[in-house]
């Protein structure tokens, strides 16, 4: 018996509606029919879906309806003070100093004064504040916004589309190969508890390539509720390295969605390092829409206290001859909870698909928990697909070996934990970033980086 009755709306569920109703007329692009229609459709979709809860399969481990009591208002803090010291604190020194074209989005506002807009433009990139271009979106943006590997069933995405304010629209025209990475810095938490809806759209046209680092940090501890969506279209023969560092304040809510679509002979390399937030849900949707492409989506999560870190992936092989790889490593201490849900879908005619997935957790305490849910939906017969998940504690024999060589126990333990997560960092091509991630994991462990 299926009684699909919307029984009640939780306070938070209603809050999101109110947020939209109150803000709709003032949201960027409110006067633009295309944008206004997009937002209207999205809030209606949210109305149908409601806040996800544990009886929705994809959210069985992360019950947003019970986790969000109330929704903070949209707050626009213009010209927030972002000092170098604050940046160091928010992102860690190595990441703050990462040599790149920098784009700073503070409290949803793209800060032209802190960003390398003109250098990026000189390098051939089309770049604009999303809030700005929503007023009159160019054709390329209209063709992509909300349409890169779209999802009908995702309430977080629907809310983002309805309420998106800050972020960038970035286009790498045909054949543009950037000489240095782009660093998209998203900082919040200067004022009162707020809801933030970041939206980035990145389009790499044929043969273009770039490394894009998204880093998320907090300038203070203010109960931030972040909803961040990045759409990435990787065109034919294009190559994108997409990296994310999330180290928000301990009380933050971080809901992240990456929507990715690949053309033919394209390459997408993604890596996410999740360190902060009380609750983080990282969703990555990758769709192969052209043959001969490959994607590597990997990540690591280090969590302690009562942190909750959920990674949910869906990789869809819609066309033949594409390869996908996923490797996720979780280190969980205290009462932290780590979740990995990975789904690989192979369409009926997507022959010669190659999909491999692995999730491994290292539990540092008796009370930490790891939930893994791998799913393969294969409708083609000539494919190579596999998945695996492991969960374990530190190997006492390895620990003894290191200790017998003079390493005191805490150092020996840290070395083994770093070695465990370090394997996932191997996906990151950029050596400076890899080192920065090693430093970040060392800092998390309270030891000196090697």
């Amino acid at each position, binding site marked *: 018996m299926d009684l699909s009755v919307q029984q009640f709306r939780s306070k938070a569920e209603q809050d999101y509606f109110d947020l939209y109703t109150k803000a709709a007329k003032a949201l960027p692009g409110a006067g633009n029919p295309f944008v206004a229609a997009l937002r209207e459709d999205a809030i209606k979709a949210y109305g149908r879906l409601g806040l996800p809860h544990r009886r929705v399969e994809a959210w069985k481990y992360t019950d947003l309806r019970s986790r969000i009591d109330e929704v903070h208002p949209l707050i626009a803090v213009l010209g927030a003070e972002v000092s170098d010291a604050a940046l160091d604190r928010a992102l860690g020194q190595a990441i703050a100093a990462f040599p790149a074209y920098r784009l700073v989005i503070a409290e949803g506002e793209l800060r032209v004064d802190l960003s390398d807009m003109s250098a990026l433009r000189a390098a051939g990139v089309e770049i604009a504040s999303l809030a700005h271009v929503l007023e009159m979106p160019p054709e390329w943006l209209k063709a992509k916004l909300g349409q890169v590997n779209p999802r009908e069933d995702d309430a977080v995405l629907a809310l983002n589309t309805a309420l998106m304010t800050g972020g960038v629209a970035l286009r790498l025209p045909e054949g543009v190969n950037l000489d240095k990475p782009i660093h998209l810095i998203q900082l919040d938490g200067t004022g009162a508890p707020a809801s933030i809806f970041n939206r980035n759209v990145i389009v790499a046209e044929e043969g273009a390539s770039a490394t894009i680092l998204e880093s998320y940090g907090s300038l203070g501890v203010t109960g931030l509720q972040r909803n961040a969506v990045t759409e990435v279209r990787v065109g034919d023969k294009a190559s994108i390295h997409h990296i994310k560092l999330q180290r928000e304040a301990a009380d933050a809510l971080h809901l992240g969605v990456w929507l990715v679509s690949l053309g033919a002979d394209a390459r997408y390399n993604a890596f996410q390092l999740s360190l902060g937030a009380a609750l983080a849900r990282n969703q990555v949707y990758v769709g192969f829409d052209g043959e001969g492409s490959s994607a590597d989506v990997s990540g690591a999560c280090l969590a302690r206290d009562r942190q909750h870190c959920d990674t949910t992936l869906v990789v869809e092989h819609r066309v033949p001859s594409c390869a996908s790889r996923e490797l996720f490593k979780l280190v969980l201490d205290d009462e932290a909870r780590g979740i990995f849900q990975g789904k690989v879908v192979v369409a009926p005619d997507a022959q010669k698909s190659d999909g491999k997935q692995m999730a491994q957790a290292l539990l540092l305490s008796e009370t930490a928990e790891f939930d893994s849910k791998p799913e393969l939906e294969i409708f083609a017969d000539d494919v190579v697909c596999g998945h695996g998940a492991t969960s374990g504690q530190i190997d*006492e*024999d*390895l620990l*003894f*070996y*290191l*200790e*017998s*060589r*003079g*390493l*005191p*126990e805490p*150092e*020996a333990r840290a*070395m*083994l934990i*770093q*070695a*465990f997560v*370090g*394997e996932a960092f191997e996906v990151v091509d950029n050596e400076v970033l890899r080192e920065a991630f090693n430093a970040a994991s060392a800092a998390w462990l309270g030891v000196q980086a*090697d």
Partner: protein
Amino acid sequence: MLEIKNLHANVGGREILKGLDLTLPTGEVHAIMGPNGSGKSTLAYVLAGKEDYEVTDGSITWNGTDLLALDPSERAATGVFLAFQYPMEIPGVATMTFLRSAVNAVRKARDEEELSTPDFMRVVKEKAKGLKIDAEMLRRPLNVGFSGGEKKRNEILQMTLLEPSLCVLDETDSGLDIDALRIVADGVNALRSKERSMLVITHYQRLLDYIVPDRVHVMSNGRVARSGGPELALELEKSGYAEFGGEATAA
């Protein structure tokens, strides 16, 4: 001087060492032989301080220090080194990184200055050369994909770099062909000195042709059953371990 008195130790609730007495003077090399299951490797682990090896009675002192009161890393700092029969593979830890961390940890514990990276590299390269360990091997993750011989050479390299005063070699000859055995034995012999004591644990006499001991002890049923000079090893080669409760011959 290493003094082991009336040592009793349990592994998984079962008593393996049953009142072992042994004295190893400074500067001497003693061999421990004995049939499988006589407690040779247990003794090695107990000396290094492995957690699940529970000492229920007796004492171990090294130059007057009560080893049983120290954790494994403190024992290493005091000068104890165990060359493992089965060295551990640790993916994700580069051999060179591991060596530097270990050397500096031990130097720090001994109140010595940490070595600078260039100094350290120079020392490692020099010592590694004698053991026929090339730079490529040092870049690889610790012992991962190493052959049996490479692992044992790596153990001896670690022993050389950590400058221990008490070396315990647990079946270092197992899994080695004759060439590898010679390299390893040369490495060990280069470390013999008046200040350094060695306990060479082996099932076979073969290793003792290359590392000639001052004394040989035969273990049986968790104790030292017989002690003698190097000739004892040769005798065992002929007679086997039958009289010590073993089935196989020692040869």
